[in-house]
């Protein structure tokens, strides 16, 4: 476990340090996330009576688009500056590299969501103070991070990576997005865990499956 956890933390430390230096990723995603909510708010004519109905959809549309932005950058720095090659010739397992990058993406997205959620709650007029909503957001974001990291590693090797990533990402993540919207609707409506029905376990199962599959596929993706 230490052989996996140690290198993962080194990769996370390096990525956080790089982001701390440039701040370009987190800041741009936060701004983008705010713009998405403003656009949806007006486009869907959100009125006080419709907030509970519309808020979960707008929330997850903004999170999904923000995730695409974050994922597009996940491997760019490593690819451009040779860091990925440096990782691949180090004695770190491909699993640790994948999980380290996925953990970094998860941390970035959760940070962004922590900033955006209170703003969304005010703008869309719903209560974000629900543990079940938090759990839904965490599990949904975990799914984004795991699948997104794999597709980001694939897309970064193509010339049209900005187009390639959403084309790969959204079809696979559709079950997570649907389940997250449904679970969030119930959580915002004040339902308890039982009330969330099958949606939360569905996201959990999806995450578990892809946490097994994605590191395995990653080792083939980065192999030349």
């Amino acid at each position, binding site marked *: 476990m230490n052989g996996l956890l*140690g*290198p993962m933390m*080194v990769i996370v*430390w*390096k990525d956080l*340090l*790089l982001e701390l*230096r*440039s701040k370009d990723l987190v800041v741009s995603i936060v701004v983008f996330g705010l713009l998405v909510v403003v656009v949806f708010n007006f486009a869907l004519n959100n009125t006080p009576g419709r907030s509970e109905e519309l808020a979960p959809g707008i929330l997850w549309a903004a999170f999904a688009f923000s995730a695409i932005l974050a994922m597009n950058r996940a491997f760019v*720095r490593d690819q451009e*500056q*040779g*860091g990925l*090659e*440096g*990782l*691949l*010739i*180090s*004695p*770190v*397992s491909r699993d640790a590299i994948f999980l380290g990058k996925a953990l970094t993406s998860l941390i970035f997205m959760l940070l962004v969501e922590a900033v955006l959620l209170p703003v969304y709650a005010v703008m869309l007029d719903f209560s974000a103070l629900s543990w079940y909503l938090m759990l839904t957001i965490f599990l949904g974001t975990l799914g984004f991070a795991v699948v997104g990291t794999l597709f980001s590693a694939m897309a970064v090797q193509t010339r049209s990576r900005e187009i390639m990533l959403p084309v790969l990402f959204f079809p696979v993540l559709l079950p997570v997005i649907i389940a997250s919207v449904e679970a969030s609707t119930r959580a915002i409506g004040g339902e308890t865990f039982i009330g969330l029905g099958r949606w939360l376990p569905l996201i959990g199962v999806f995450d578990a499956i892809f946490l097994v599959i994605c590191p395995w596929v990653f080792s083939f993706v980065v*192999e*030349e």
Partner: protein
Amino acid sequence: MFHFAVALCVPLCGTPMTTQPTEAVLVRSLEKSFGEWPVLWNLDLSVPWGQALVLFGANGAGKTTLLRILATHVKADHGSVAVAGQNLRSRPENARRRIGVVGHRSLLYDDLTCRENLIYYSRLFGLKDHKPRVDEVLAKVRLGDRADHRVRTLSNGMQKRASIARAILHQPDVLLLDEPETGLDRESVSILGTLLAEWTDSGRSVVMTTHDLDLGMSWGHRAGVLRGGKVNFPDAEFAETGNPANEPDIRQAIISALEAGR
């Protein structure tokens, strides 16, 4: 400067592939193609401990591909490759611990300082008590005073030196250098030459490629020419004597082999 040692071209055909580190690098029947285009073909190679093998070759001859295979970054289509006794197919992670690579790219992050980059790599390689080691290698490549400067602020030559520091950080048994002199000034070339001499004197091995015949002749114990997907040893017929007086013959043999084309 010329110090080619007595070195025999060891015939590998028929010898069993061993995982014991009897040779620093042992390659047998290596093949690699990109699409329909064969780059390396039935290539055999051995590098004894304590020796530096210099590979010459025309552009596109497969020098970088061979080094990338030895560095475990590219997989061979066919054949056996062992570095420091570690079979690259079955135990690549063990092999990576014992290999240091200097390629065309520095593999350093522009927005991290030299020291941060080296700390990052030393953690990846699981080095304990890495701080003195980082200072030591930075001093070795004479970047001690630039240790806390971001890599993007360094000149190309300094970045190359930082890349050399990265490659030797974990004290690998085998150093793989792809045209390491590129971008280096005279002083840096001298530092690298001293470092390589120390490396082989301590019983470790080096495989490097270069287009610079003079440097290659002065740094290497053996010279090979990569041509037609194979490594040929033009120095083999002169090596038995081990006589520095043979340098002009060896030099001419290398030039002839290079001029014969890919």
